[in-house]
């Protein structure tokens, strides 16, 4: 079994694969109609590696992320990054995790989850992937996403006394 298949099997145990297709190239239509489809098509699906740079796109909930992380850890993937994306129109903050594999090429798993903007709380995965520690601190720093149970959730790049989350779309100095 190739790496990508076993990764798929591991993820399937946590997040079922869905058939909902995100419109591949909705250029020009504006984001008003799109986000609904993006938000609600929960589940994992395969995407074109050549086009998006990822082989699996997993949309999960905040509660599932720890299980997903355990599943990916079991498959020997490593953490590449954690990023936040602010969607003020939907009043949500998205956290995007990317994982990749050292040996097998073309294995990149993008895990996305959305939390409400007013109370962004996500369980930490720094106990599974130690490298997630700093990435989570960075996401907290920029977006104010609170990673519960994080051992040391303080600002990492901005001064410690900063009282704003600069990468939120509505922030303007």
């Amino acid at each position: 079994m190739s790496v990508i298949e076993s990764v798929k099997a591991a993820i399937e145990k946590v997040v079922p694969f869905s058939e909902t297709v995100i419109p591949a190239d909705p250029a020009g239509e504006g984001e008003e109609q799109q986000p609904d489809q993006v938000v609600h098509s929960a589940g994992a699906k395969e995407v074109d590696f050549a086009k998006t740079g990822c082989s699996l796109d997993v949309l999960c909930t905040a509660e599932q992320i720890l299980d997903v992380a355990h599943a990916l850890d079991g498959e020997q993937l490593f953490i590449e990054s954690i990023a936040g994306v602010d969607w003020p129109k939907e009043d949500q903050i998205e956290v995007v995790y990317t994982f990749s594999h050292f040996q097998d090429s073309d294995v990149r798993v993008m895990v996305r989850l959305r939390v409400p903007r007013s109370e962004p709380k996500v369980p930490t995965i720094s106990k599974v992937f130690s490298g997630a520690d700093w990435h989570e601190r960075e996401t907290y720093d920029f977006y104010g996403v609170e990673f519960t149970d994080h051992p040391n959730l303080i600002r990492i790049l901005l001064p410690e006394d900063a009282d704003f989350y600069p990468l939120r779309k509505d922030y303007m100095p």
Partner: protein
Amino acid sequence: MTLPVHLRHDETFVLNLGPQHPATHGVLRVKLTMDGEYIVKAEPVLGYIHRMHEKLAEAGTYPQFMPNTARMDYLHALAFNHGYALAVEKAAGIEVPERAEYIRVITVELNRIASHLLWWAAFLLDLGGFTPLLYAFDDREQIIDLLERVTGSRLTYCYMRFGGVYNDIDDEFITGTRDFITRLRSRMPRMYHDLVTHNIILIKRIKDIGFISEEQCRRYGATGPVARGSGINYDVRKNEPYSVYQEFDFDVPVYSECDSMARYMVRMDEIEQSLRIIEQALDKLPDGPVMAKKVPKILKPGLGYHYSAVETARGSLGHMLVCNGDKNPYKLKLRSPTFSNLSLYGEVAEGMLLADALAFMGSLDLVIPEIDR
């Protein structure tokens, strides 16, 4: 690493290394809890050169972010140029002419050598050797001269464009590069290996220091020479070939000693491999345009998430681009390699001697603006 038995944790003190310190390569601060000469806890403090690149990416249009990419990792600026160009080209579906891809590879690899030479000089400066800096800068200036001829700047290049490169290379550049390859090949064994690599002081300073296991690399997501020095055969150029890297025959140097010497050797071998790539690219260089014909003036890629990875001198650089059909990126996340590489510093430096910890830090090849972005 476990602490030596004689260490008593009740007599510790805090030592601040940086932000201004000759061995930190910029403005990194490490808060060290020391027990005598031994480190009990090391905690890097970042953010001293955070320059809001991700915010600026959202503020300007796609081409307007291009100069910023060079200012993150100024040592391997062209790889950052390349990564960003690839990410946007992927999102907007722009085809790049073959000649442009070859030119990109040649310049990126030249820049990689320059970056490794500078690392080499600075690393030895950390260890107390000043002379190698003069030799390395002599060679590095040759590369800068070549790159300045085609890009117009010495350090912070803004050379790549979406759909090609800014300027075609000329015959003088090609002959100059060939001369440089011969020159560096002839200097490499004597100047670099005899003078430094086989020097007993260097070996004593960095052998068996800074042990990073394969598992640690995976947990922290360390890539590049740090991972390759720990026996992981991972190079984005091989694993997920981008640009025209699949056309070239080159090896990925892997050492499984896991110590600072292994990382040193990986970088020294990479210089040779880069020379090989440049040589092949110059031989195969096709004719044709260096800019794609149909590049829209204002780019508006549709909604989507795009991840693109390139291999910089320090590891795998990722651009995660979220587009929403606007003329500016909705979100650009930069996965900088040294950010992950440095995050294992705290765990590895525990129990080390202070002097060894500095040698270990040098072997990670840190570029602070890239960590802080």
